[in-house]
């Protein structure tokens, strides 16, 4: 399957990439977390690790995470003979936690960025809800790919979405005003070819185009992906920064950080994100300042349209 750079990418690789965008941290994390309290000794934590074959344990109080103890901390405690000390004196307090709702692609970026073996996961209320390791991610992706392979092999020929329509990915460059919109043009052409209802095509085209212009005008550049299954279409905009400090403000109609140059091009009126939210059936946005933003717009395909796919 050709992508924008003309390279051949296997369907499995494309599906994996799509799953990374689609799955959330909460879909993949281990929920039963072994924890220790700050008053436990390092010896107790060492025994927890040994018994449960773990390489790191979060330290919590009332389910709020205070720190983390890793195997390295235990080895150091044994080397320097303070294994009977209380955990709170030696735990790492400078932690990075993931949020449940973050897309898995964000988590992968965290593993690359920080080089940690695991990340605690916190709920919207700030409580520890799970832990995520590289192994969890690998296991989930293998399950996803196997399930997809099973689905494809057991589906009737007429219900298989053509490989061309299954997944497309487009690079969008910062301030590339003349090319911005080309990806959405192509997405619209694919949808027209798939004979979806004109109203649905228009909604998806508008959502896609708004997200693409957003990438070109407000981000440092990124990627717009399109995936189509028999039941839904996902448009995902993923950028490399600068991130949105206040997501709910950015989704408020009329709020804009656009400069005069962008406004002179007919955009930047603070209507883009609210409009994507309006036209889509499901809308999700996750952003971290300096790291980037991922916006997902999902459109359900009504049953009367599914026969044409």
């Amino acid at each position, binding site marked *: 399957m050709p992508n924008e750079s003309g390279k051949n990418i296997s369907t499995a690789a494309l599906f994996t990439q799509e799953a990374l965008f689609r799955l959330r941290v909460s879909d993949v994390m281990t929920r039963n977390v072994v924890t220790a309290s700050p008053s436990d000794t390092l010896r107790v934590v060492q025994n927890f690790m040994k018994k449960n074959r773990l390489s790191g344990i979060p330290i919590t109080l009332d389910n709020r995470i205070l720190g983390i103890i890793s195997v390295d901390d235990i080895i150091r405690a044994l080397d320097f003979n303070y294994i009977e000390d209380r955990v709170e004196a030696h735990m790492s307090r400078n932690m990075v936690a993931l949020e449940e709702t973050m897309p898995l692609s964000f988590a992968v970026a965290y593993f690359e960025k920080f080089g940690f073996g695991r990340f605690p996961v916190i709920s919207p209320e700030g409580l520890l809800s799970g832990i995520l390791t590289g192994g969890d991610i690998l296991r989930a992706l293998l399950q996803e790919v196997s399930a997809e392979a099973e689905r494809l092999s057991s589906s009737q020929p007429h219900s298989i979405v053509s490989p061309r329509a299954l997944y497309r990915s487009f690079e969008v460059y910062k301030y590339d005003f003349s090319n*911005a*919109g080309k990806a959405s043009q192509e997405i619209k052409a694919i949808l027209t070819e798939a004979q979806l209802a004109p109203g649905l095509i228009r909604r998806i*085209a*508008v959502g896609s185009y708004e997200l693409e212009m957003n990438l070109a005008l407000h981000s440092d550049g990124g990627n717009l992906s399109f995936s189509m299954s028999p039941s839904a279409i996902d448009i995902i905009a993923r950028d490399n920064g600068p991130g949105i400090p206040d997501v709910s403000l950015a989704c408020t109609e009329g709020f804009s950080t656009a400069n005069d140059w962008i406004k002179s*091009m*007919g*955009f*930047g*009126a603070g209507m883009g994100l609210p409009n994507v939210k*309006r036209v889509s059936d499901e809308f999700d946005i996750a952003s971290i300042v300096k790291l980037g933003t991922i916006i997902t717009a999902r459109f359900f395909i009504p049953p009367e349209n599914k026969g044409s796919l």
Partner: protein
Amino acid sequence: MTNNVKRATINLSVSEIATITQASGIVTPQGWENRSIGGIEISDLMSEVLLTEYAGLLLITSLISDQTIRTAHMIDCAAILYPYQKTLPSTVLILANQLNMCVLVSPYSKFECCYKLTQHLERTRTNAE
């Protein structure tokens, strides 16, 4: 997909629009004369145009860019009307042609185009009554 934007619906063909505003077609895809216009949007702000809910719109705008053509394409506009006999760069014309977008140019200002169209619609309504 709903919003609070209210637009009057009309029923005119693109050729009728061209006659009323004395516009000439500078990009004229096959069958352009008979395309049906169901509403009119007058704006230079593409963010605003993208709020449109229905197909078959006439977009009256002064904004000349690829993005104007793409915006019109995304919402299934029937035609774009430029005022003041504007000259469009070849890149814009090529894109309009590629996207099957009908482009008209009128000698009148946007206000005058709107006035003439409103006059026509009023006359039609009165005659019908």
